[in-house]
């Protein structure tokens, strides 16, 4: 096996056998299986649904679930590595062929990869580390009617509650802004937006 694009580590022994088994599937069966796989990749939280769909596929095509799961594990190695390394569809196709998959099936898979890669890339980016991520903002504003020092006040206040994700917990931060501060905050945030947009 030549140098693979999706990984530098040696590939497990079982993969060749799994690819051989995959080649035995008809084009239609392979297409159905690929669909199940990509649906899982684009929605990685739906583990239950994925397992159900795999089990349905196994029943419908008279394949045992155990071996099918192993095959799926082998197949998934490629898209996972490809995502990390920003591989092109051609590279994905080349890797499958190098692993022993037929040209026809490798091309089909690479095509599906091309179609799904924007969604998958977005997902991977979304998993990237964020420090103290802002998850929610609540606000209220009102008028201070009076205080112990001033019988009648009539000044406007704005209160913000920021919900920040710190590790696996969320923390609430409360603060108050005066009106001029609010306008200056809004102005700065609009500048940030312009800056972010110019880099997108």
């Amino acid at each position: 096996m030549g140098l693979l694009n999706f990984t530098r580590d040696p590939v497990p022994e079982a993969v060749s056998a799994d690819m051989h088994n995959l080649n035995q599937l008809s084009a239609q069966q392979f297409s159905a299986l690929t669909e199940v796989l990509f649906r899982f990749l684009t929605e990685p939280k739906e583990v239950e649904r994925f397992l159900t769909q795999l089990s349905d596929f196994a029943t419908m095509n008279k394949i045992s679930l155990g071996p099918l799961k192993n095959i799926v594990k082998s197949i998934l190695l490629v898209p996972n590595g490809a995502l990390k390394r920003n591989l092109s569809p051609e590279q994905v196709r080349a890797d499958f062929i190098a692993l022993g998959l037929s040209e026809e099936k490798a091309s089909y898979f690479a095509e599906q990869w091309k179609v799904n890669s924007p969604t998958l890339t977005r997902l991977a980016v979304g998993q990237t580390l964020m420090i103290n991520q802002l998850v929610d903002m609540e606000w209220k504003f009102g008028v201070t009617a009076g205080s112990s020092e001033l019988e009648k006040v009539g000044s406007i206040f704005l209160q913000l509650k920021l919900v920040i994700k710190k590790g696996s917990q969320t923390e609430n931060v409360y603060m108050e802004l005066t009106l001029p501060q609010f306008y200056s905050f809004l102005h700065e945030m609009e500048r940030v937006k312009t800056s972010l947009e110019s880099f997108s």
Partner: protein
Amino acid sequence: MAAPRDGEFAALQSLLKAPSKDAVRQLCQECFSSPPAGLGPLALRACPGLAIGPEEAEQLVSALHNLTRHVVYRGLTRAEDILSLFPENFHQNLKNLLTKIILENISAWKSEAQASQISLPRLVDMDWRVDIKTSSDSISRMAVPTCLLQLKIQEDVALCENNPVVSALTVELSKETLDTMLEGLGRIRDQLSVVANK
């Protein structure tokens, strides 16, 4: 802040021993700004200047504090209103001097009271920076802009007296989060302008 009592006005007459009008002015300002706990030390400091004993000084300082705070509380801005606070037989010139000094300082004192009122922690400063994330463990090449926002928040002034505690909080926002936040801020601005136009 309740209106000063007659006994307190009597204590004010100690001001007649002040060396100058500026000394009276100075004392008025210090008495207003001092919190109740600081009046004791202030009285002791005032003793030598006025040539009065500590007990008399304490009563004077307390009376001046109450008078100035009462005027600010009620929001009195006209000379007549302030003059009418004093009892009938109060020293005429001193009454006029005190009224004049109070009127001079009233708007500054009002701002001071507002600035030191209780509140949630206040935003005192904000800084931001935009980074481009180029690589991570989940994807080796990317160009994702992200914003880091640092908010400096000061704890309630009244709790900290002279040493305000300022904490810095750095928050990261993605472009989507920023857009949502701006939407929210825009809605606040619209509602504020509705309130302002009423």
